[in-house]
């Protein structure tokens, strides 16, 4: 089948009790690479992955993966995709090698191919040294990498990973990024993440979702250009920012003030110093677009 890697048209998913998880999601992904789906908790990221991987049916609308309809042609979709679910755990009685091999064999790969692919995946994810240790005795980060190795060992055209780097230390996270980049050379890697830094530095395309709707979509560079402000100044949550002439956003870590230019930043810093308030300054990033578009409440 031909067609884009992923096509979603007016996807709606309403769970029992009326919870609207997806509210008319439409987008198309035409090229291989890494797509980062970002959004706050409950935004609909996991539901979207579930629909695209045929684990749940949309209430309305339609979606295709590689031209296959996720409802009508679900068996075809399952053949050409591979999934790392969110918060998943490997079988704890198995060793990493057994786990990856078991998953590959269960998907119908021949013994020789499964053994070769399992070894390659474990080596890439730095698990080869612990391949014979049962997963129960591995750290949480290693268990997560076992799942990623199992999914990425599959020769798929589209890989779906739902928050794959949660729980990984910064070094392990970068190792996973490298593996994902390798996979994206020949396939589409569609991942959800909470880490804006991850979405910004890893993704070729970023999709922002909030309350079941797509709010922004584009390359990190294009999205960064949409950020009107060049500088962000973070104050303590308790700091009094009343009367300050700047865009102020209440975020979890504290109040965020935005400045469009160096001149505006100088004025702002002068005002804060005069008031005796502590602050930090840095250049804006994709996270700021995310805060303003998705989770920010302007104060």
């Amino acid at each position: 089948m031909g067609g884009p890697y992923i096509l979603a048209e007016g996807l709606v998913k309403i769970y029992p009790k009326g919870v609207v998880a997806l509210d008319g999601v439409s987008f198309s992904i035409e090229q291989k690479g890494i797509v980062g789906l970002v959004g706050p908790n409950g935004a609909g990221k996991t539901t979207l992955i579930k629909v695209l991987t045929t684990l749940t049916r949309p209430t309305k609308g339609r979606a295709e993966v590689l031209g296959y309809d996720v409802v009508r042609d679900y068996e075809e979709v399952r053949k050409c995709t591979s999934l790392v679910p969110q918060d998943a755990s490997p079988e704890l009685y198995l060793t990493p090698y057994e786990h990856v091999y078991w998953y590959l064999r269960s998907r119908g790969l021949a013994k020789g191919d499964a053994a070769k692919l399992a070894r390659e995946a474990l080596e890439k994810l730095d698990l080869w040294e612990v391949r014979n240790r049962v997963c129960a005795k591995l750290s949480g980060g290693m268990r997560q990498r076992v799942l990623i190795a199992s999914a990425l060992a599959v020769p798929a055209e589209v890989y779906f990973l739902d928050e794959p780097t949660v729980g990984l230390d910064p070094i392990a996270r970068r190792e996973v990024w490298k593996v994902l980049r390798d996979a994206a050379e020949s396939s589409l890697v569609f991942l959800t993440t909470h880490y804006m830094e991850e979405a910004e530095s890893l993704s070729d395309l970023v999709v922002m979702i909030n309350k079941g709707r797509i709010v922004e979509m584009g390359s990190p560079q294009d999205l960064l250009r949409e950020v009107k402000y060049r500088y962000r100044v973070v104050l303590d949550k308790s700091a009094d920012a009343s009367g300050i002439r700047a865009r102020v956003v209440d975020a979890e870590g504290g109040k965020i003030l935005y400045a469009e230019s160096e001149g505006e930043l100088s004025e702002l810093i002068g005002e804060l110093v005069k008031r005796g308030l502590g602050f930090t300054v840095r250049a804006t990033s994709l996270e700021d677009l995310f805060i303003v578009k998705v989770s920010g409440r302007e104060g």
Partner: protein
Amino acid sequence: MALSYMKEPLAFVSDLIIPLVMFMVVQLGTGRGVESLLGILVAISWSSGSFALARKLATYRVWRLLDMFVASPLKPIEFAVASALAHLTIIVAPAVVVVAIMALTVGVNPAALPFVAASMLLAWFAGTAFGLYAYGKLADPLRVSSAANLLNLLLILLPPVIYPVSILPRELQLASALVPTVALKLVAQHLAGVPAEVPPLLSAAAAAAYTALFTALALRQRLTVE
């Protein structure tokens, strides 16, 4: 995966210790230990298919590992059957131990062993169908473990599976054959040539009816979350 005893040998001891203590009590008290050992073989076969399989599937569902398999070319029914077959291999080791105890204590007729094995397969098959049905009915996978413990009590420990039917009052002996696990144990008894208080036709009919019923119910279940 049939690896639990290989990687956790203590589970082997804990799984067998209560049934074997019951066997010793029955053997010392009534001299009908052979019925008890046949009951243990049926019980472990039934349990491996029912409670253990349902628990495993529920665990995989809680761990979201099941999602990886559902979203793959492997059909849910293939995954369930493969898991059930893996559980069948788990019972080989305890079955060998029980048969060895049978040979050493009450004696065993080698000609009866294939029939005993056949009745174990029947119990495993019926248990598997029951387990898949029970798993599918429990919307909350976290309840599977407590439900399995309750059903284990009701279907294995309370009725005369591991202890002889003859211990019950006469009027309850026939009724006990209406419990699926007891019916399967009585079938094993008849096939092994061990006399039983319940007519063979009644226990065979009950076992066949339950197996057909559980199979039909299991086929209506889905492994997927939705």
